[in-house]
Structures are given as C-alpha cells and as structure tokens.
C-alpha cells in the first residue's frame, strides 16, 4: 500500500517536473531505477531536451480543399499514396518492407486495398530498387519507390544521377522516367547516429534533371507528394522522420496539389531573411520569434520546399546584395552568391 502511494507520488512529481516523454517510456525494470534516482532522471531529460528540441507548429486548418481530418505525417503520406493509387491505375509502390505497412507505417492498408501486384516488397537492394523503378517509369507506368532510410540512398546514387536525371536529355525527349518518385525518410531523429540520421539533399542539389522536395508538415507533405507523383520529372521526396508522429494537423481527405519549385513565405519581415526546409523550419520560426522579442529584429521566414529547382525569386525578392541571408546550411549561400 505504502509502496503504491510512494510510486504514485513519484510519478506525479515527475510529471509536474515536465519530463513526461521521459517517464512514459519506462519499463518495469527502468521504473525501479527512476524510483531510486528520480532527480537524476529529471535532470537528464531536461539536458537532453535542450540539445534536440523543436516544437512543431501546425498551420491553420485549410478551408479550400474540402473536409479535413487530423493526421500526422505518416498518415498524410498514406492518404496521398491512397489517392494516387486510386486515381492512376498504373501506379505501383515498392520498396523494402512496404507490404506490411513500412517501418514507419506510411503504406499501411494499401496492399489490402489495391492488391499485392501494386504494393509489393523488394529484396534488400537499393541500386536494384531505383534501377527497377526507372525501368517501370520508362514504359509509362507510375513508379513510387521507397528507400527505407535516406542514408541508404547512396548505392542508388549512380542510378539517380546518371540514369534517371539524364534519360530525357540523352534520348532527345524520346524516352523519360518522369513518372518515377523516390520517397525516403530523412533527417536526424536523436538516436539515429551515422546511418539513420542523414540529410543527403545537398548531394542531389547540383544534379539537373531531378527534383528534390522536402515538406515541413503533414498538410505540405500530402500536397507536395501528390505533385511529385504527377510531375513529369523524376522526383525525390524526403520525409522528415522525426515529424512522422510528432507533427499532427488538419489535412484534407481529398487529393490536392501544392506546386513544386515554389517557396512559401511563412512570416513576413523586413530586416533579415531566414530560409529553411523540413524540420528546421520549426526551429527557425522559434528563432524568428526570439529575435523579435530579444533583439527587435523583424525576420522573414521562408520554407524552401523544393530544393532543386529552387524558387530564386521568392528568396531573393527581399534580399539585396547588401542584406544578410541566414541559412541553416551554408551550401545555398554559394548559390545565391553566384547570382550577383
């Protein structure tokens, strides 16, 4: 009895300290450890939070696309794929473990709904998956390939850069693999280390012939993915894996498109332009509000959305040669420097 009361008291204290995410995942044995050293675990949690912290900021509910439903990122991807497979009878989804739903549940229910010849597993071979997808796309069918983690895309780098990107050009527009879309979980997640955290968009950013798209939220993801699938160029769609469950907002059930190569100005400002994409957009938003509050600086926040071909006009509209442009990665700065 006393033990139960003590345990309950400890749990309440931990919750009050704001370390909810931390205690929720304790298993039986861990509970004992936390029970013996509650203060240590609270401090640990707080320290770790500071290192990898961002708050997802949902956009307001979109009114123009019909009825909406609360979805997180992986559910919005499933919805987009569902709409694609329904609309396009030639569309197929393939990759490692997609049949049962995928390691991030992005393809749950699609195999049951559309059949095993439209949603199927491939063996463990990234180069083979992308090459195979290029082949399907060249015949005119819509190929949606999944690379299980963006870190594994490198065996397929040759196929993407040397085959997919150059197909239309080298055949004089006789052939193309425009109906190929490659989807891949992207970005850091906290515990991924070397091979489950990479953001390889920069490697593809200098390859003409392909499009690279990174959404920041479920609503953006569905619209951008549908645009990628319908776009007549091979596209790589990176999905921030840390947002799969963390990001939830109202997303329309019906299909809709968000145009590619168009950046979105999330917040108007006059002093500094901040450009970001993916998860970083939420960090930058927080930075903008902190800059406003503490330094009195008015920041313009732009979500780039499409990395290549990128929306030069929107980004440079407010920037002149003498103003600062702050970017989360330094690579784009070289691009803009070349314009002047």
């Amino acid at each position, binding site marked *: 009895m006393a033990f139960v009361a003590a345990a309950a008291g400890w749990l309440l204290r931990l919750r009050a300290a704001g370390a909810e995410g931390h205690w929720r*995942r*304790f*298993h039986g*044995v*861990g509970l004992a*450890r936390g029970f013996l050293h509650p203060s240590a675990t609270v401090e640990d949690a707080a320290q770790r939070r500071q290192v990898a912290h961002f708050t997802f900021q949902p956009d307001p509910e979109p009114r123009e696309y019909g009825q909406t439903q609360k979805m997180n990122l992986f559910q919005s991807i499933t919805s987009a794929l569902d709409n694609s497979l329904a609309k396009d009878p030639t569309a197929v989804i393939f990759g*490692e*473990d997609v049949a*049962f739903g995928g390691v991030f549940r992005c393809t749950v229910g699609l195999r049951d709904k559309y059949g095993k010849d439209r949603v199927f*597993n491939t*063996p*463990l*071979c990234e*180069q*083979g998956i992308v090459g195979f997808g290029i082949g399907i796309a060249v015949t005119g069918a819509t190929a949606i390939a999944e690379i299980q983690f963006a*870190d*594994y895309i*490198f*065996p397929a780098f040759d196929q993407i850069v040397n085959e997919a990107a150059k197909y239309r050009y080298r055949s004089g527009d006789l052939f193309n693999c425009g109906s190929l879309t490659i989807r891949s979980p992207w970005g850091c997640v906290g*515990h*991924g*280390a*070397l*091979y*489950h955290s990479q953001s390889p968009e920069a490697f593809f950013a200098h390859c003409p012939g392909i499009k690279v798209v990174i959404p920041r939220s479920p609503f953006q993801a569905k619209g951008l993915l549908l645009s990628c699938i319908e776009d007549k160029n091979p596209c790589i769609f990176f999905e921030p894996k840390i947002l799969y469950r963390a990001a939830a907002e109202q997303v329309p059930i019906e299909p809709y498109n968000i145009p590619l190569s168009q950046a979105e100005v999330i917040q108007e400002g006059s002093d500094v332009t901040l450009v970001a994409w993916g998860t970083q957009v939420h960090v930058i938003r927080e930075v903008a509000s902190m800059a406003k509050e503490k330094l009195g600086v008015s920041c313009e926040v732009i979500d780039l959305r499409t990395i290549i071909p990128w929306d030069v006009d929107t980004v440079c509209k407010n920037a002149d040669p003498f103003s600062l442009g702050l970017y*989360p*990665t*330094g690579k784009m700065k070289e691009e803009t420097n070349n314009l002047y």
Partner: protein
Amino acid sequence: MTLSRRAATEAWRLLGHLKETLGHPRRASWAVRSRRCRQCLCFMRKMLAAVSRVLSGASQKPASRVLVASRNFANDATFEIKKCDLHRLEEGPPVTTVLTREDGLKYYRMMQTVRRMELKADQLYKQKIIRGFCHLCDGQEACCVGLEAGINPTDHLITAYRAHGFTFTRGLSVREILAELTGRKGGCAKGKGGSMHMYAKNFYGGNGIVGAQVPLGAGIALACKYNGKDEVCLTLYGDGAANQGQIFEAYNMAALWKLPCIFICENNRYGMGTSVERAAASTDYYKRGDFIPGLRVDGMDILCVREATKFAAAYCRSGKGPILMELQTYRYHGHSMSDPGVSYRTREEIQEVRSKSDPIMLLKDRMVNSNLASVEELKEIDVEVRKEIEDAAQFATADPEPPLEELGYHIYSSDPPFEVRGANQWIKFKSVS
C-alpha cells in the same frame, strides 16, 4: 488434554528429541529411521542451509569445488556431426570430431558470456541506458565462437551490425563492449561508435550499411595474399544482404584473383522482418557464389561450425581461392531492440528452436553425457560469467561520457589539428588525429 495442548506438547517433545539427536553424531543416523524425525530433519536441514546461504552472501563454492576435484573426467570425446551440403566440392569437412575437456569448457564459457552479455544489453536498453540501435545475437553464439575456434588470432574477420559476439571472440573484454554500447569513454571506440561500430585487432567491425562490408573483406583478403603470411579473411554477411549487388562483385574479384577470402552467410532465416522465401529467388545461399565452392553448415552446433571453418581455412590457405559457407542459425531476439520479433514469426517457432537447437544446451548435453564436465561445474561457470557481466554493466553505467571537445576528433588525419565546420559556419570542431 485439549487438542492444542496435546499438539504443543508433542511438538516440544519432538524438538527436544531432535535437538538431542542432531547434536549427537552417532544417534543422528539412528534418528532417521523414524519417519517423523526424517521429515523434520529434512526440513531443519533445508532451513539451516538457507539461513547459512543468506548469511554467507556469495555463492557456496567450497563444497562444489571439492566435488569437482574428486571426480574423474574424460580428457576428450569423439562426436559425430552433421554432414555439410557441398557445392562444387568433392569432399567436405569430417563428420566426426574430437572435443577436449579444456576446449569444451572454453567454448561453453565463451558462449555463455556472449549470451549473458546480449541479455544484459537487452536489459540496459530497456532501462534506456543504451540508446540508439542495438542488434543482439543471442541464439547465434555457436557461429561466433565456432568461427573463432577454427581460425588463428592472426586471421582477419569483418562482419555487419550483429557484431557484439564477434567483438568478444576477437579479443575485447565485456567491459569495453558494454561501455561502448552505453557510449562511455571506456568503450572500445571511445564511446563514439556504439553498437554497430566496434573494432579490435584483426576485427574490422561492425558495419552499418548492409552488404558494404563484403567488398571490404575481399580487399582485406587481397592484403593477406599480398603480405604472404598465410592469413585468411572471414567476410560475414546475412541472408538479407545476400541479395545486394556488391556481394556478387566481391565474389567475382575474389575468384578471379584467387583471394584467401571465406565468405560466410549467417542465415538466420529472416532479413529484418522478411523471411528468406520471400526475399530470395534461391535460398541455397551456399550455392549463390556460383563459381565459388560452397558448404552449408549447421550453425547451431559449435563443433560443426568449427570443423567447417577449419576445412574452409585450409582450403583458402592452400591457395585455391575463395570459398563460401552458409551457417544455418537462428536469432531469438528481433532484428533490433525496436523489433519485438513476433510479428513475422510465431512464438512457438522461437520456443521450438530454443528447446531443440539451442547451441549452449547442445554443447552442455554433449559434455555432460560424455563425462567431459559435470552439471555443477558448468553451473559454476554460469555463476562466474554472471558476475563478470554484472561488473561490466556496473562499469558501463558508471563510466563518464567522452568530453564534448572530442566531438570533432578523428574526422580527418592531419597534423596540426584541422578545423572542420559544424552545422553552420560559426560552429567549428577541431579534428585531432
């Protein structure tokens, strides 16, 4: 007299009788003739033993040691092992092997250490002391210990991410392995590698990308041949990786240049969650090398693995070129700690393998049945191993993490230290090497 008073008097009389008898050496044996006395005596003995156990704390060694020393064990025993399926080979490894008592105890201890170490890693992961990814190899102990038994310490080994067992058999201590898992300074990669990136002398890891280690293994084999020191390279990969293109590129290069490379496919029937039938057009992984001879080995029997490895190593050392071994084994845990391991296979299947083909159980039965060791002796080893793992876990939990300044170390090799840019141009790391 009432019942209770009668019972109480009886009990008091019995206790007094017993007190007298137990104290008297001659009368003690006489007392057991009486059934009530015998029962009470038995109970008293148990209570006394339990009390003394509690009071003495650590396990009772002296009594069993005396027992062991007094028994006579066989020095060695001959066992029959399963015949290997062969591909492009006239004859395979022998079907009988001799196991000495010393070797048997050594293998048992090593396998038990690997097993307990993996289970401790499981426990630490669930307590969130180990973070990130953790791929456990319990069930596959016969593979790592058997392979090590068939080669020399100067031979080379490279494998994929299910590497904790190999890290131990290649010479690192459990302390260093567990400290690396918890990401502390005392770890073998100084806390920067983690579960998938453990290295030791002549052990090249520990590789995260599936299949990427196989061409590396072929390269190490080339170095062996070039150096002319009669060494071989064991290049391991799994049944999932067997479908990667670069493996076939490595096969071709190794066969073309007759490299002393033993390709080993650890077939544990599931590539993450996909069973071999659903992933491979041909599940005869030992034949996949086509022009490379192959053998299929029972990977749950350590003696079978040892003999096959000796055979394969001899083949390579004679200059005939590469050879392929498929080890048919099983893992009890899921693919990694985030996989429960029961959504693509039944619990009954796991239980069946555990009860019929557990490598440690098989070795134990063999040794006990041929009088190479006693059950008590093996239990003693279990206790020692448990203690070793506990100490290592204690160290791994208490050791400090590497300091933050070392974050950028070893990115480049350069003297003076090289400055590497961080996530933006205002963050700089020093790459010291």
